[in-house]
């Protein structure tokens, strides 16, 4: 077994959560890598959807944006953006929404809008894009992000997309009928929501990671499952698939074709 990085472990652990039957709304970045590793390994028939309107896409390299040409060229079909959000997302035809986060709290609420007050932000982030409705219309939500004290916080500055709110049945109280955040995969651990409180709880630590390391990179007091396990390390096939994908992607995007924008 060759060695692997914590980011590789995160991507592969996230990929394993997806099945062949899933219809997945893919966020850009780490979620996109995880979804395509799933497609290239154990879930060849998974349906991947990007918010640009591409349905059933099979890109050879990871797209830089949600609308790279290859997503359309390899898709089963491509629909307009109004149709994507009305018929497919709002229509309840998507099983998993796979999101990243700038700030996350223990209940899976996500902020990608602002750090600091909305009207006078310390940092203006890109905002939600499709995420506010992805978070409530997909049957369930998976989240993946690298852990940091800045990212995993006690209280997020802005509710870009609603997870479990204040926990318990808060989601239902807001009139939301879908399951919401159901899995969190970080570079250190795999987390599942507590069935009652909905607080994310560590269920497995990645190989070589300690409880202290997880707590040291998390801004809330971490809960660990009683039967805490170790995440199975990447298999040679998983690792080779991810590395080849990343290599093809770097080659495709790194080449400066033009000097001007």
């Amino acid at each position, binding site marked *: 077994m060759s060695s692997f990085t914590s980011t590789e472990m995160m991507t592969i652990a996230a990929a394993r959560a997806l099945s062949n039957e899933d219809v997945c709304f893919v966020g850009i970045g780490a979620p996109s890598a995880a979804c395509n590793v799933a497609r290239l390994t154990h879930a060849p028939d998974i349906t991947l959807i990007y918010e640009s309107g591409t349905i059933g896409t099979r890109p050879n390299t990871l797209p*830089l944006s949600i609308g790279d040409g290859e997503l359309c060229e390899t898709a089963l079909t491509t629909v307009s953006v*109004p149709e994507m959000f009305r018929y497919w997302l709002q229509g309840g035809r998507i099983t998993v929404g796979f999101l990243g986060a700038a700030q996350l709290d223990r209940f899976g609420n996500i902020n990608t809008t602002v750090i600091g007050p909305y009207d006078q932000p310390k940092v203006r982030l890109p905002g*939600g894009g499709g995420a506010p409705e992805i*978070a409530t219309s997909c049957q369930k939500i998976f989240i993946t992000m690298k852990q940091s004290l800045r990212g995993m916080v006690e209280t997020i500055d802005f509710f870009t*997309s609603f997870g479990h709110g204040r926990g318990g049945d808060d989601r239902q109280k807001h009139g939301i009928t879908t399951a919401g955040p159901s899995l969190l995969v970080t570079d250190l651990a795999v987390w599942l929501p507590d069935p009652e409180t909905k607080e994310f709880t560590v269920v497995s630590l990645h190989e070589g990671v300690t409880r202290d390391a997880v707590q040291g990179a998390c801004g809330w007091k971490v809960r660990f499952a009683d039967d805490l396990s170790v995440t199975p390390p990447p298999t040679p096939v998983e690792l080779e698939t991810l590395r080849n994908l990343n290599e093809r992607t770097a080659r495709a995007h790194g080449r400066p074709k033009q000097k001007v924008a």
Partner: protein
Amino acid sequence: MAKFQSLRDAVAENLFDGDVVAFEGFTHLIPHAAAHEAIRQGKRDLTLIRMTPDIVGDQMIGMGMVKKVIFSYAGNPGVGLLRRMRDAIENAWPRAIETVEYSHASMANAYEAGAAGLPCAVFRGYKGAGLKHVNPQIKSIICPFTGEELAAVPAHHPDVAFVHAQKASRRGDVLFEGIVGVQKEAVLSAKRSVVTVEEIVDDFEGLHPNLCVLPHWTVSAIVQVKGGAHPSYTHGYYGRDNAAYLEWDKISADRDLFTDWMKTHVLDVGPDVFAGRVKELER
């Protein structure tokens, strides 16, 4: 009725200071050449509607043309932040801008409602989300049949919309294919529209009959600008210049570098330069 014009005339006759203007193109078919012409003509006090302002929004905001931006994702997709837009929001450089922020679903629905001649869009949105607390334009409505609370936002009715497309026929019908975004809805929601195209052909005979076509009587002006979407792309003609998107992150990070870049690549040149920019990207 579509008029075939130079880009200069099409912009001068359709975009005015103070207008509410939509530039659309969802990653694909972004009308860069048209935006550069608007910058050269020094249009002022615009309200820019654009789902993802992207590089064209960053450039227009950085040049001080925009007083208000209506948007749903202020990022350079896959790269990071829009640094000129951030500088305007955080430091009022080169001027303060008002922002009205929605979600993608909201913007798409608002265009669709505009195209349909409705005053507002109704959809299942913003449940538990923070935007409805900071944007007073996001309201709710109760379904008269089921009692469900739904989100309501005002329809987009821009004065003018700019989009880029693959082909126009000599009659002025417009053909789009690939990632079609909200371009059709943006044009149909607007009072006037300018469509830049890669190519003008005799007719669309022999092509797929369902390619997103805007009939000539829905478009105000058609302009041929080869490469007019660069560094975005035109499916079937040339690919997305991802390296240029990555490079924009560095150019836009510095006010002086940005200003110099705009002078060299926009203010001092004409739309003809776009053909050369896509030469190496052609399929």
